[in-house]
Structure formats: C-alpha cells, structure tokens
C-alpha cells in the first residue's frame, strides 16, 4: 500500500482531493476539542493569571509542599519502575518459554492486562481487604508473628502505595516486554552453543545486549505509568497529598483559594514536562532496539 499510494485511485475517484480531506474532518475536529485544546489549555493557562501573562503560577510551584510531592512521586515511580521491570522482565522470559498459544500464556497475559490497565480503585481495595485490619494476609502475618503492629504502613506512599503500585507495574512490564523477549530467536542460542558458548555466554554476550534497549525503554514506560497514576493512590491515601497527581486533584476540588486552579495547571504542566522528557528518551531507545527485533 505504501508502495504506490496513487495507483488505482481511479476506481475510487470522482471526488477531488479536497473532498477526500473532508472525510477526516470529523476525526480531527473531535480530537481538537477533546485532546488538543485540553493539552494547550494546560500549557497556556500555566502562564496566565487574571487574563495576563505571568510566571506567578510556575513560581508558586517552588513551595515546599509541591517540591516534596514531586520528589516523592519521582522516587516512587523510579523504584516501582525498576523493581517492576526486573521482576516483570524475569516473568516475561519465563512466560516466553511456554507454548506460544498455550493456556498459561493466555491466562497470564489476560490477568496482567487487567491488573495493568483496568484496575484503579479496585486494586487499592484488594490491598485494603488483604492487608487491612481484618485482612486475610494481616491475619496470617499476625499468626506467624511477623506482621507490623498497625496497618498504618499500608497508607504510606513509600510502603503500602509502593506495594500496590508494583501490583500494576509488574503486569505492565510483562505486557510491554513480552514481545521483545519473544523476538529472541532460538537460532541465536544454537549459534552460541555451536561456537562453544555456555548459557552464561549466551545471556552475557547475545541476549542481554539485544534486550537491553527494550528493557530500559520498558522501564521508562513504567516510570511514566506510575508517575501519572491517580486512581489507586487516591483510593488508598485519603489523609495527605504525598504525590503530584493527588496535589493536582487537591487544587481541583478546593475552591477556598482563588487562583489555585491555575497553580494546578502549572503542576499539570510540570507533569507533562517530566513525562515528555522520559518519552523522548524512550522514543530514541525504541528506534535503536527495533533494529534487531522484528515486531
């Protein structure tokens, strides 16, 4: 199709090029209103207050509360991205050795799809139900005598929230990384063996270098995923606002201070900037990794 886009348009003709463009107008109109305008609103409104340009909103980000939240958000996202990537990567390899259309692979990819994409509030509930005061796992831990005395840890960003975030990060890693692992050809391993290499040589010299860009790329993706997550954190943490998305939500709902909405937009812009930086690195890496892997 890309070879000769113009050939054969005769039979489809009868409409001038301008007419052909009219066919995509609804799509572009819709995405302009509901996607592009909102994005522009965030970018522009971050620099506007009371109708004129200002850096006040961005400067307001300098307050301690936001910087702490930003730092905690970045630490949480980085930690869950790295742990999630390592565990999810090992899981992806394990699953890739199973039969391609077997029930195990289908089961795991479906389960991971649910946990990674559709969970939200329910995932927080799952952990409250299991690790909360009357939870099944807390009861087990109490019986074994290893559990912490209170369940307060569950609602702290660097303990409970981190654990719940892993609950969707590991599955996401599997979904993102599985295609890369499946791109490893058995022939490469056989070639290594023929040349006298051991399993270790294969991993060290062949598989790891090939998978490394995809692995780092997937890790970055996990980072932005955790960084943008809101629902799970909101359902788990109700007292404070330790993370950026929660702070944005706070400015959104509080109508006590006028102009808070614009600070919220500046926070949103800060999020977009972080995500954009990470995604740029990701795009660059993805170009490199697709050299070897036919997807």
């Amino acid at each position: 199709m890309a070879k000769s886009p113009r050939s054969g348009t005769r039979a489809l003709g009868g409409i001038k090029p301008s007419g052909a463009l009219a066919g995509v107008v609804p799509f572009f109109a819709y995405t302009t209103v509901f996607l592009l305008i909102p994005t522009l609103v965030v970018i522009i409104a971050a620099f506007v207050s009371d109708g004129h340009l200002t850096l006040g909103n961005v400067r307001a980000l300098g307050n301690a509360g936001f910087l702490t939240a930003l730092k905690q958000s970045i630490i949480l996202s980085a930690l869950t991205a790295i742990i999630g990537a390592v565990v999810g990567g090992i899981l992806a390899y394990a699953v890739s050795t199973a039969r391609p259309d077997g029930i195990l692979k289908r089961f795991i990819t479906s389960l991971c799809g649910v946990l990674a994409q559709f969970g939200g509030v329910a995932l927080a509930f799952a952990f409250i139900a299991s690790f909360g005061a009357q939870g099944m796992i807390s009861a087990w831990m109490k019986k074994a005598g290893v559990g912490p005395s209170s369940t307060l840890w569950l609602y702290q960003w660097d303990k409970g929230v981190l654990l719940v975030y892993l609950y969707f990060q590991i599955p996401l890693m599997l979904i993102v990384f599985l295609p890369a692992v499946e791109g490893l050809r058995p022939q490469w391993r056989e070639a290594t063996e023929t040349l006298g290499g051991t399993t270790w040589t294969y991993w060290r010299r062949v598989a790891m270098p090939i998978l490394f860009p995809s692995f780092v790329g997937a890790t970055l993706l996990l980072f932005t995923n955790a960084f943008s997550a809101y629902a799970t954190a909101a359902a788990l943490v109700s007292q404070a606002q330790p993370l950026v998305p929660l702070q944005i939500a706070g400015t959104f709902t509080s109508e006590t201070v006028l102009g808070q909405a614009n600070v919220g937009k500046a926070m949103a812009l800060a999020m977009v900037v972080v995500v954009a930086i990470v995604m740029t690195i990701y795009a660059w890496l993805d170009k490199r990794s697709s050299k070897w892997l036919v997807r």
Partner: protein
Amino acid sequence: MAGPVSQRAAVRRKQAIFRWVTVSLVLAFFMLPLIGMLDFTTKVRRGGRTMATWKTLMNVSEISTKYPALKEGFIASIGLSVITVVIMLALLVPTMTWVRLRLPGMSRLVEFICLLPLTVPAIVLVVGLAPVYSWVFYLFGESTLWLGLAYVVLVLPYAYRALDAGLRAIDVKTLSEAARSLGASWFRVMWRIVLPNLRTAVLSASFLSVALVLGEFTIANLFSRRNLQVAMYQLGKSDAKISVAVGLLSLVFAFVVLFAMSFVGAQRSGSRRRRRPLAAAVAPAPAGTGSVKEPS
C-alpha cells in the same frame, strides 16, 4: 559426552522448572490480594463464611433500594460504555478506512493523535478538559453521560490498535474498489463491505473500550460525577464489603473479556504479528515510536 539432542533436552527441562517456579511465585503475588478480596467479602466476625454480600449483590431490587448510589453509578457506567463505543466506532472506523484508501500520507498523523492519550496523564487531561466541560455542561445540561465524550479520547489508543490490526488483515482497497465499480455508494461500502469484514477488530475494540470505561475513575471523580468506580469508592467508606465485592466483580469481568479476546484474536491468521492483537492493543507504547510499522 552428551550429544546436542540431550543437551537441548536438558535446557528445555531447566527452562520448564524455571518457568514454573517464577510463574508460581509471581502468580501468588497477583492472586493473593484477589483471594483476600473474596475472603473479606465472605467473612463473618466469629469465623465461618457467609455469602450474604454476594447474594445482596446479585439481588437487583435489594441493591437498588439499599444502595441507590451504586445503582446510579452502574447505570451511568453502562450508558457511558454505550456512548463511548458508538462515538469511538463512528469516529475511527470511517476515518481509518478513509485514510487507508484516499489519504495514506496522513496515516502517521492519525496514528500519532490516536496514541497521544497514552502520554498525557489522565489527571492532566482533566485539568485541561475543565474549561471544555464547563461549556459542555452549560450547553447540553449536567448529565454524567457527557463524560463519554472524554472517554472516547481515553480509549482511542486501544481502539486504534485493535482496528488497525483488523484493517491490516483485509485488503480494504481491493474490496472497496470492487464495490465502487459495481456502483455502491461510499456509505454502502462502509456499512456493507468494510464493517462486516472488520467484525473481530470492531468487537475487540468495543470490548476493550467497555472494560476501560467500566474501570474509569479519575475523570468522573474530579468532575464530581458518579460512575461505577466513583460509587464504589464512595461506598468503600460506609459499606466496605459491598464495595470490595463490586471491585472484585469488575476485575473478574475485565479478565473474562481479555481472556476471551485472546482466543478470538488467535483464530484470525497465522502471521506472528496478528496472533497477538490483544497484546498489541493493550501494550501502551507511546506515539510515533515505530511500534506499528508500515509495510514497505
């Protein structure tokens, strides 16, 4: 010394052991909180089990009298799913087909726009949508169902991937040329030729959208609208058992949808790329990173 055949067998055995150990450990981590949910909803204070929560949940009339908010949220979510799917299909199927037929130069741009929502955090989208929605609510009234307009944007990437996989599998150009030369109108081509051929792709795009809409929380909560997730969240503060049960049910529903779709996708074709339409549709690779390659 072991020959190559026995060496391969040994590798296979090792891989199988490694696979089962890893999968069991991680599955335990995945399943335990879910089992914890089930345990929580069936527990009685003095030990023992009860199905009371689940019986209540299955009893429609009891739910609607005792938990009107839950009923309201559920109905809203169902309505939102329908609206989202209808608009999504009406927007994407003709546009993507049209771009393939007449404007191949625009395919990258359309792909970029469709995958863009993956890189814009939902919470940021909410901030930007606030002025848009103040107009929508002002012009059309305060119905929760208008959120469907924003949900279409949320499901764009997933729907796009699913439909794109479907369009790749058929020769749209030849099909529509044939239909056109036999005198069919463009509408007829779309309705009678393209759509029936895209059945599976349309179905998986729709189911993915429904699962996503049923799980949506961020936008509804911040616009103070009550959908299923928001109702569940609010109920969690007063009646934890019911809300945990609803949460478990929604997860199980999404799992059933994805699991069923993994079989639907497999029947289509032998090509490696198309054997994983689900993974392709769910994997959130960002815009313009070459994850979808043009055949050259």
